[in-house]
């Protein structure tokens, strides 16, 4: 489980590094999506344990061997909200690109047409 947490931290920090240092708006949006992937992986890690089975009641499956269904439902919520915010973020970037002619924030305002 410790190794999975390391992957969560790596993904989150990688995304945050992208968001802070990149100048390209599309790459900043990608950074947000990578951070979100890290958070989702964390939720899945919280739910799971070795030899856990999916939380679907079938014959011959005991409830003590099922993984926790609550973080799964929460991560579904997080995915939906992530899709909504990513779509809105990208639409604002498209609009900015049409206005400024570039997606790089350090070149915006210098290339007035």
């Amino acid at each position: 489980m410790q190794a999975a947490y390391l992957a969560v931290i790596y993904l989150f920090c990688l995304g945050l590094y992208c968001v802070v240092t990149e100048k390209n708006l599309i790459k900043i949006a990608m950074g947000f999506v990578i951070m979100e992937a890290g958070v989702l992986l964390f939720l899945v890690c919280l739910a799971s344990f070795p030899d856990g089975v999916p939380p679907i009641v079938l014959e011959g499956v005991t409830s003590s061997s099922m993984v926790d269904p609550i973080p799964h439902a929460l991560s579904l919520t997080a995915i939906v909200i992530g899709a909504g915010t990513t779509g809105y973020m990208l639409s604002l970037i498209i609009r900015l690109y049409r206005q400024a002619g570039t997606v790089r924030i350090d070149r915006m305002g210098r290339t007035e047409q």
Partner: protein
Amino acid sequence: MTLGKTATLAFLVILAVLLFSAMGALPETTDRMEAGGPTWHILRSAVPDTGAVNLVTAVLFDYRAFDTLGEATVIFTAVAGVVLVFAREAMVLSGKGLSPLAKKSMDILTPFIALLGFYVILFGHISPGGGFQGGVILASWAILVVLIYGIRTEEDVLTGFVKMFLESAGALLFVALGAVALIGGREFLSNLAAGFSPGDVGSVISAGSIPLLNVAIGLKVASGLAMMFVTMSKKDGDS
């Protein structure tokens, strides 16, 4: 490497160490589930409580159904925001579509995509899936049509009005199903307690209102995401 990047890296290393020590202090999953908390309760009594054998769906559409209504509102808000950002764009033909080969393949694929989407929506309470996942599959159909046939055909097959109608119908169906419980004096969105039949547990028609709520969410997600993609792929009116 600039000063800013070095400072960011140093900050991230500190953040990573703090996060790792915090995560190490978390209780083990199995310990947390033994404690008699919500998970313990759901794993033992979700099937008699809700009639759904997929416990994730039971949590999402029964125990936390009100939260799911809020989630659907988030999708609606995102779609409204995207449409608002592009409100003044004119509809210009964006691409004539791909080759006849791709179009023919799309014709063959369409029924299978629809079948998978509806299967995932309607079997959400007994197998992995549900309204959100199936809705995304159905939205991928609209996106493929835009990519392969071009945006004009997509607008002919599925006009903006139809998508708007489907999204509103999904939201209203969800609220109406929740309001049915109010008539019997139960809490908003309560399921079996409000008189919905649990049916034959494990079959398609079971789990009270959960399959209907799945259909409502599926309609909403499919039309919402399709509307978002089509709005974003419109070309600028001036260029």
